[in-house]
Structures are given as C-alpha cells and as structure tokens.
C-alpha cells in the first residue's frame, strides 16, 4: 500500500510566488504570509482588494494574486472606504505602517474606525519610518535613537508614543481591535488567530477591524534579526502591550 502523503505546508494560492524586497529579519514578510494564508483558508481570493500604503510595503501588491490598489501616504482607510462602498460584498483590507496610520493618516484611520464600516486594517508598528531611512515615528519609544531624534526621543521635544490600538478601541465603531507581535512562532500563531477574527468581523459584516502587529526593523534599528526580536520583547512590548482591546459580539 502506497504511503499517504499529506500536505502540511505550501505556498498559498494568494501569494504571487515572488521574492520580497524586505530586509533580512524584517517581519513584513511574516505579516504578508499570514494574510495570504487567511485569504486562502477563508476562500476570499476572488473577492479581495488590498489597499497598500506608502512605506516599506509600498510594493505589497506585487506579492499577492488578488486585486490591489496603491494609496497615497496615510489615505488607505479612505480609499478602502471608497472601494468597499461600491462593492460591499468584497473583502477589503488596508495595510499600513506607523507613520502612515498614526501621523499623516491619523484623521483617516480615526474616522474609518468611527464609521465602523466593515473594512480591515493590518497595522505594522516597527517604531520608525523604515523606507525613508529610520526617522522618528509617532510610535518611536522615549529614549529611542532615530535619524531625526539622534540623542533619543524626549517627551519634552517630541511628545509621547501613540498607542493606536487602545486609542481606536475607545470608539464605538470598531468591532475588533487587537495588538499582536510577530517576534516568535507562538506569537505568530496568536497573530494569525487575531487576524482571522479581524477578517471575520468584516466577512460577517459586524464592523471595522484592526490588528496592530509589533514588528522589527533590523536595518534602521542597527540590530541583527535576532537582537531585533529580543528588542520587541524587552523594550517594545512593555509600552505596547499585547491583547484584544475590543471584541464585539459575534466576532470569532
């Protein structure tokens, strides 16, 4: 009798089978992989439209086999709103970085969350502007050195880091808000579980959903990939705690 072979890991159909441009140790690739897996598992490939940001993931649309659009810096939630309203049965997600969502696009994300329409945002928080060379972001930690806070961020000069997930969870519109981390296999599994809930919140028409992913930027942090993962656990998580901040009834 021939031995039965079971596929336990493969390239998602939603993945365009391309090599990404991301730096070694960057977690964008992990977040991308999770999106592709979930789109496959939830049977969404034919009805998905991805809205990509300005930032390191500006070319994100190159890596997926579903429809995509490229937004202006910070405007992905507005563009996603325009796409969703024309075809409410489609699955629309925006992918945003921290400068994109919490600085230039703060108005767009707050009002998309407040409207509560079922769109999903995957938010990559790596504490700096990666693509432009590591400048200070709204999520840069106090004391953290960046190219525009060379002596370390101080609250007197630069104010305090913004906790996007907690802030948006105060609104009545969102159905699901969570912060996850992509630093370890265990946390990546939890991240996928949170993203599945976020996707479901849209598919089931419950409301707006957002998953903030604590991410790495080894190149601009001047750390190795391993050191970057360590930094997420030791320095980033204490200020940006993991957890679910809003779970509306029906989200599973």
């Amino acid at each position: 009798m021939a031995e039965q072979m079971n596929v336990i890991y493969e390239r998602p159909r939603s993945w365009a089978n391309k090599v990404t441009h991301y730096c070694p140790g960057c977690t964008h690739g992990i977040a991308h992989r999770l999106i592709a897996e979930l789109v496959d598992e939830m049977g969404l490939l034919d009805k998905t439209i991805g809205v990509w940001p300005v930032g390191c993931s500006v070319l994100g649309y190159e890596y997926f086999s579903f429809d995509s659009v490229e937004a202006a810096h910070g405007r992905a939630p507005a563009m996603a709103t325009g796409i969703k309203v024309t075809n409410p049965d489609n699955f629309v997600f925006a992918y945003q970085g921290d400068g994109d969502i919490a600085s230039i696009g703060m108005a767009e994300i707050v009002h998309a969350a407040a409207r509560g329409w079922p769109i999903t945002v995957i938010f990559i928080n790596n504490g700096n502007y990666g693509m432009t060379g590591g400048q200070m972001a709204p999520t840069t930690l106090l004391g953290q050195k960046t190219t525009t806070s060379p002596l370390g961020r101080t609250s007197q000069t630069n104010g305090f880091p913004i906790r996007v997930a907690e802030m948006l969870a105060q609104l009545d519109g969102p159905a699901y808000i969570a912060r996850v981390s992509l630093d370890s296999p265990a946390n990546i599994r939890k991240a996928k579980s949170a993203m599945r809930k976020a996707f479901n919140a849209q598919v089931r028409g419950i409301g707006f959903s957002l998953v903030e992913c604590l991410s790495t930027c080894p190149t601009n942090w001047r750390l190795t990939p391993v050191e970057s993962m360590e930094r997420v656990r030791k320095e980033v998580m204490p200020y940006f705690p993991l957890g679910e901040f809003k779970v509306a009834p029906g989200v599973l």
Partner: protein
Amino acid sequence: MSDKVLMKGAEALAEGAIQAGCRYYFGYPITPQNETPEYMSRRLPEVGGRFVQAESEVASINMVYGAACAGVRVMTSSSSPGISLMQEGISYISGSNVPCVIMNAMRGGPGLGNIAPAQADYFQAVKGGGNGDYRRIVLAPSSIQEGVDLLVDAFELADKYRMVVMIIVDGLIAQMMEPVEFKTRIDVSTLKTPEWATVGRHGRDHANVITSLTLDAAGLEQWNLKLQAKYAQVERTESRIEEYQMDDADYAIIAYGTMARIAKTTVRIARAKGVKLGLLRPITVWPFPAKQIQAYVGKLKGTLTVELAYRQLFEDVRLALCDKMPLGWYGRGGGVVPGPQEILGAFEEQFGKGR
C-alpha cells in the same frame, strides 16, 4: 408642456450628475456649494447610490479614488480651499489612469478669501495643482442648464479617456436659480464595469492592480509618454468654444463661465452703439480652444480678455495669439463681479470707441 424646473445651481448640478449616471458621491461641507452634498445625501439613496460625508477634502478625494478604481461613476464637489486640499488625490487619480468628476464652485482667494464668485483657480484647474505631468479636462459652463448638460459629457469623457474631468463654476452659478431641463438620463444598468477595475477577481485569470508608482525611471517615462499621447488626443479632439456675434466682428471679448455671461450683455450694448463686438467663450478651458481663436487672426483688430482673476485666462490667450493682434485685458478679483457697462468702459479705454 416643458419639462423645465426652477432649481438652484448647486442642486441642479447634483441632479445633473445623477442623471449622468453618478451613483457615488463623497464630500465635505464648504460654501458656496453645500447644497450639492446636501442634495446628494437625500437623492442618491433614492436611486440606489451612496453618499458619504468624509472627514475632510483629503479623505473625500481618496474615497473618490477608491470608488473610481472600482470603475463606477463617482464625483465630489468643493470650493477653492477644499479643492486645494484635493490636489494630492487628483495627482494620484491622474497618475493611475482612473476616471472621476470633480466640481469646483470657485470663490475669492487666496487663502480663506471669501465666498463670493471668482475665477482665480484657473491656473490650479488648468495648469496643475498637484505634482507631476498630468492634465485634466476642464469644463466651464456659463449657465445652470449648460452645467447640467456638460455633466453628461463630463462623465462620458472621464470614462472614455480615464481622466479627471473638472467642472468649474463659481459662487454665482452655484447659488442662483434658473429654469433647467434634464434632457439626458443615463441608464446605469447599461454601464459596464471596465476590465481594469479592482472589483475582485471573481474568476478573472489575473489580478488587477491600480497604482501610480513606477520605481524604474525608464518605465515611468514610458507611462508618462502614454499619458502624454492621451492628452494630445484630447487636445486635438475635445476643445470647445462658443462664438457669439463673431461673423462680422472687428473685436472680441474672450471670457468663460459667469464672466462670459455678463460679457454677452456688453456685446449687445456695444452692438446697439454700432461697435462690431463679439464674444469668444471657451467651454473647455483645458483643452484650450486655441485653434478656434487663432482662426480669427487677420479678421480681428483686437481682443479683450475679461475674467474674475488677474491675468490667468489671459495667459492662455497670449499663448494662442502671441503678437498677432492687440490683446487687451480686464479683470476684477476678490469676489467683485464687474457689470456689462464696466466691461464696455474697459473695452473703450483700451480700443477707443471701436470704430
């Protein structure tokens, strides 16, 4: 019996857009065009469309961008400072080759200015505003009826060329009431979703991607050359002008929109005095009807460009006519609207009694 109804400009233009097949509108309040979003908010749901009040003009235009990517007929409207905020989105929409319609009810500027009628956004509408080499088709109606009629053309042109089409009016046309007839009703069920639209693959064998990004310089140059070829075609085929009392004219006023409407009265007064004055009224200000105006070289003794701005339209007249004839100019700014006699006075000051 006539099907004419008496309507305010900003509302008639909204209904005109709906009759032209517009089913999605995103906007933010700003005077003097608030009646347009207000009207859309109650009318669009009646026809199966959607109205969204955005958090800013920046968001409005990016919602328009999203809906435009889905290949539907979509519009926004605003007034000068709001249109300034939309320039980023207009550049992206143009760079992505997707269609939409934008109405600007121009008001006095610069800055917050005021809410009185002006044409001071001519450069912004016609020459640029956002970054990069792009053009939009700019239509300039001089009555509410013409605005309603042009909206049908606006959506057709936007779809045909995958371009931003802008309708420029001013506080006067937006706020006055006139009889208007809706002659064309587009059946939206006949509008097909374009093959390039990002509406989900739904069995399509490839993904559609809409972006204005091309990192490779040679590739972006090729993309620009495609846009330029499209713009050249629009320039060749889509310019429009009204020629009023021009058959025997010695002189012409060149004006558009509200100013042209007033200048028509100037022409009639001048004609009554025996002055052979006519009016050249660009209906498209981009593409500028340069060829139609150049046809009068050798026939006219001079032109007087009149506008609610300072030498903006005049710049295009000068580019078209250079030194081929004497070129006079008269304009008022800040929302001041000159009457027909004042324009005639300016004409006589620059060209004598015209005989």
